[in-house]
């Protein structure tokens, strides 16, 4: 399965990854090659086989709806690239 540069750009956009014009061709080659490897799956007969999402066939464990976390605002803000008044700063979102 071969991808073209248009599809690579679309995927990059979905993944929010900047891909320059120089890099696109490299990705076209690499991703097409990897999808070529993946093509081997096509031959497999999976009629009647259910998907296996989890090795132990567990379902989501639930817990009581009580607060167990403590307030660690300062600690959690410590790694923020930009913050002010306990808010994370980002470029303007709404015009």
């Amino acid at each position, binding site marked *: 399965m071969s*991808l073209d540069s248009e599809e*690579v750009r679309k*995927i*990059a956009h*979905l*993944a*929010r*990854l*900047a*891909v320059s014009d120089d890099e696109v061709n490299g*990705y076209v080659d*690499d*991703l097409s*090659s*990897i*999808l*070529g*490897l*993946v*093509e*081997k*799956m096509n031959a*497999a007969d*999976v009629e009647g*086989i*259910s*998907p*296996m*999402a*989890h*090795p*132990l066939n*567990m379902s*989501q*464990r639930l*817990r009581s709806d009580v607060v167990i976390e403590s307030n*660690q605002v300062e*600690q*959690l803000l*410590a*790694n*923020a*690239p*930009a913050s002010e008044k306990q808010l*994370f700063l*980002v*470029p*303007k*979102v709404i015009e």
Partner: protein
Amino acid sequence: MQDKTLSELSSGLQSGDFSSVELTRHYLDRIKQFDADLNSYITVTEKLALQEAEEADRRRQTGESSPLLGIPIAHKDIFCSEGVRTSCGSRMLDNFIAPYDATVVEKLKAAGVVMLGKTNLDEFAMGSSNETSWYGPVKNPWDTQRVPGGSSGGSAAAVAAGLCAAATGTDTGGSIRQPAALCNLTGLKPTYGRVSRWGMIAYASSLDQGGPLARCAEDVAMLLQAMAGFDERDSTSAEQAVPDYLATLNNDLDGVKIGIPKEYFGDGLNPEVKQAIQQALSEYTRLGAETVEISLPNTGLAVSTYYVLAPAEASANLSRYDGVRYGYRCEHPVDLEDLYKRTRGEGFGAEVKRRIMIGTYVLSAGYYDAYYLKAQRIRHLIADDFNKAFEQVDVIAGPVNPTTAFKLGEKTDDPVQMYLGDVYTLPINLAGLPAIAHPAGFDSNGLPIGMQLIGNYWSEPTLLNLVHRYQQQTDWHWRSPDSGQN
């Protein structure tokens, strides 16, 4: 001192032959002397380590004598360590100071270990050679022109070179077992759910599992004892009692059936590696085990299945890296989209971006059924192969890598070449089974050859028992590389 087992070190500490502070200084000196050539550590926590060593010595004075008290180890830099940089081998987290300890770190701390530092790894655990790290490749102590294996290459190199007594790693597609095998170590990937993933930076959540790397099975058992256990904070943690792994190490092997899958010993396997494993199997039969030919028919589908599922899960897990709350942020973002795209474009390396894109593609509208859902169904087939085999045999033996350590740069041009090397380790992660890699000899270049034993769910005691008995009859695991040895 770096050639002693963990229990020998523990005895030495207990009888006062040396203190934890002295032992820690010994390793810190060796790191200073040898790690520039190996690049196995990303962060060395010298001050913290000496503080922890003093604390361990103090605890011992008050009468405490737990097996791991005062033992210096290293953690793969994928486990959050409070107050210490946790980079995951990536520019994206180069400036990230973890605000909490991973459960694995917490449990080993409670057992009294001293943390020497955080070891190098393939970026976000994606790689089989430790060549994709932002901090540069790790070198194999057995031949510094060659790879140590990945993604836990730093942990493996550090243990093999005597730069720590043992280390933690993670295994999603072989990342504990492959470096263990290429560096002459014993490394265990536990059953999925055995070790908590809380605080372990996620790559592929249904495949990731943390585990120990050390010089021998007994050491691995001691570490696993401290690492294993149910954790409420990890919703995929299993409510399964932790047995006493040391108690059964010396059990007899009479009647243990070892399955030999014909698919694992075909053309792709280097002849010297094949021969060493066959000799090891003779040793196992001399110890009382019996070998049985089996088949794992869907082995050929494992690589493609894994490289759909793991990247898909990775694309979801890595979407949190957005330059907003922590980690790398690009300079002067003009709007939110620019912030996301350039932060991620610049913060992630090439292999990570490839896998995110493959993952995004196979999950996208129109392709989900054909790729992701189909891969999950093949996963079921692969797990069923093992379930059927375990009706006949107790454990399954196989290679870990198709060859011994390859040269740095040899496979980096073609990602698919690298992926194909994972054929023997991936199926085990897909099924969620435990597996242990251990030394089985050396090739004509003096490079380590490893093999693995795969067990049924929760059979870590059996795996450790088998390898321990093998290691009582052989001495491959005690050999040390010339580099990094005094």
